């Protein structure tokens, strides 16, 4: 029985040590906001915050995680979709199908935590998740808006 700190709560999980965190979250913990898109760390749909860093959860086996590791998923990012990134995403009407957006939002939140006022080239470098609907232009706009909300407290 492994113990995982997910969204501030310690959860007990019974699964094989090689089970990727993605599938632990989806199938053992019941948090399905983190998405399966490729399984090979290409698409970023499975992005979570792992000790404050954005990570592709399809590449983190359960056996390498300890109770000391802090995992935050899209469900734990904020209360009531109040994170500046979520507010900006709503204001800009970013999502189309929405499938990749959990990962996009987690990547953007991690970027802003490291760099509260990113330039376009910082966004280019950090936002490497795949979106097949092609919401990239609005993602860029929303990251800038989230930075404004985060630094000035302006409402999104």
């Amino acid at each position: 029985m492994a113990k995982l700190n997910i969204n501030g709560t310690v959860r007990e999980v019974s699964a094989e040590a090689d089970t990727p965190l993605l599938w632990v979250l989806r199938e053992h913990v019941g948090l399905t906001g983190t998405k399966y898109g490729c399984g090979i760390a290409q698409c970023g749909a499975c992005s979570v915050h792992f000790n404050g860093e954005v990570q592709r959860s399809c590449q983190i086996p359960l056996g390498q995680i300890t109770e000391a590791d802090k995992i935050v998923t899209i469900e734990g990012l904020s209360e009531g979709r109040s994170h500046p990134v979520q507010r900006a995403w709503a204001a800009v009407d970013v999502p189309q199908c929405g499938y990749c957006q959990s990962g996009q939002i987690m990547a953007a939140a991690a970027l802003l935590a490291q760099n509260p006022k990113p330039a376009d080239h910082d966004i280019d470098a950090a936002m490497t998740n795949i979106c097949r609907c092609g919401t990239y232009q609005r993602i860029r706009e929303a990251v800038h808006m989230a930075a404004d909300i985060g630094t000035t407290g302006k409402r999104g």
Partner: protein
Amino acid sequence: MNRPVLEKNLKLSRRDFIVGSAAIANGGLALGMRVPFDAAHADTSASASQVNIWVAIKPDDTCVIRIARSEMGQGTLTGLAQLVAEELECDWSKVTTEGVTPGQNLAAKRAWGEMGTGGSRGIRTSQDYVRRGGAAARIMLMQAAANQWNVAASELTFSKGVISHAASNRSVRYGQVAAAAAQLTPPDPKSITLKDPKNWTIAGQPLKRLDTADKLDGSKIFAIDLKLPGMLCAAIKDCPVYGGKLTSFDESKVVGMPGVKKVVRVKDTAVAVVADTWWRAKKALDALPIVWDEGPNAAASSATIAEMLKDGLGASTTNGDRHNGDALKAIAEAPKKVEAVYSTPFLAHAPMEMMNCTVKLSADRADAWVPTQNLEASLAALSETSGIPLNKCEIHRHDLGGGFGRRGGTQDYVHQAVEIAKSFPDTPIKLIWSREEDQAHDFYRPISQCRLSAGLDNDGNLLGLHVRISGQSINALLNQKGIVGGRDMRQLQGYYETPGDAQLGYDVPNLLIEYVMRNSHVPVGPWRGVNTNQNAVYMECFMDEVARAAGKDALEFRRALMKNHPKHLAVLNAAAEKGDWGKPLPPGIHRGLAQFMGYGSYSAAVSEVSVSPQGKLKVHRIVLAVNCGHMVNPGQIEAQAQGSVAYGLTAALYGEMPVDKGRMTNLNFDTYEIMRLAEMPKVEVVLVPTYDFWGGVGEPTICVVTPSVMNAIYAATGKPVRSLPLKNVKLV
């Protein structure tokens, strides 16, 4: 509602249903009907009054608008709700939506019309009857208020869900009269005068989507996320070579693995592992020894398929053409000739949510939860493969994690899930394809080659044009009745003479456009934009080659051929103007343009690119103009146009599904590369609606993206690009 009573009255056979699926809905019939909504599936609580099939209103004035089409990101749900709300004259802030299921639609004799969502039809082919539905509900609400006050309905006014009688200074909210309105006889829909779109206040506005909130916090449940009591999960492998079969598998190697319940043969070609979780099922499947009979296509390759297509370029018989004058003679006699051969590859759809379907079969009941662009086709597939009558089947709606044409008529993954579920009665089985399976078993964008030749006079005027496409047919695999007398005109999409849908915007004095069918063993299907993509590349890139040979500017050369096509021309002019055509450029930046028509809408693009001395391409800016006639939500039209740039440019830069030893390669995103945010050019969408027709939005713009970029590369390097993807082309 009392479902069994309705079922008893159900006279439609499955054959009627499937045949009927292809027909356009009779909106008038739908409106006149009383169709109780199935409370078991509806969010509308008992307190909501169903005014008609499109509108239910709660005492707190919440307007529940019913949506029959599928939502896959394209925004149709919001647009359809805007159209109903516009005529309903309700308060937009009180609007919610509710999906109609195909079982409900079947029980109501298709009162909600066609549910298929493809071909950019979601709004344009349902706009009339959904608007009438909203208007009919408003008329009934007004009449209910008039009856209550004992005044004539003509004395009443309405605004934002409030009905007023000025003479007596009374007003009432929709929620207060909805129950009474629901008892009234609906008006004859033909008697309803719809609002002039010029006077729209809800439709036509760039309103925010209604379906965003739960996409922001992970709470949206896609079909792939579904969890049902007692559910088991399945992972599947189909024979990697199309036409091959499953010979055998060694179940003993995996039965003891954690969570594994069973290994199931799925028809003749596939094997699935069923386990308590999908990860465990997939792990066991990967460990399962499988022997395939790869069948007659095991030696096929991209090279053999290319040879087959090349043969078609010289074939003596064709499968559809359009012509005027004598193009071959005109070209032969022309003082100047241009000739080129282009090619485009197979492409996978790769929606982010891979194919999946959950099925629960009982003795006399079948349920499926599936992301589908055609809910009624899913229902038919569920019934057909389970053997359970249609009226004992239901499809539970989930919005799709992308569709792009993959999840329409074929329903292959639904058939598979039902087959697997047959081994587990009363147990929900969730089948999920791995990304690799999704890439290996798509219905791909058809491959083709195209030879074009043109003749010019000494002044650079186009005398004749001959276009011959040799390529794979979608109809041959999926819709044989679309091939009439050996002619498969769908392959010439965008080259038609007839106006209105996908008309060629050029008049050429001597024109011959031909299609030669050459089908490989690889299955093909509609891919966002379908044949307009390849056909726009061939026509628009060759136009630039011919213009250059004529010594003319690419825009001026086209304009001379477009005098009789004012709508095509207006959109091209709009793109050219906003795209600064002819104006000075920064050093190293070059422009290209393209125009084309599909799905009833007109599109044009001007792209700006640079090509480094090492041949590295960067697309800096794309100005994309579109005339889709009426605009229901300009914000979503813009979003679709932006998205089409990403989807189209991904294909242009990277997209190809090569064939090796009979099987598809590039099975995940490491090899089937997808454009990322850093490569997204600045997209400026120019909306130039003429408000005199209803065109599509999801697909029309994608086809001009790639040729405009290819033409900009040609401008940059002086070398035409004639094959895709660009990653394989040495640009300098």
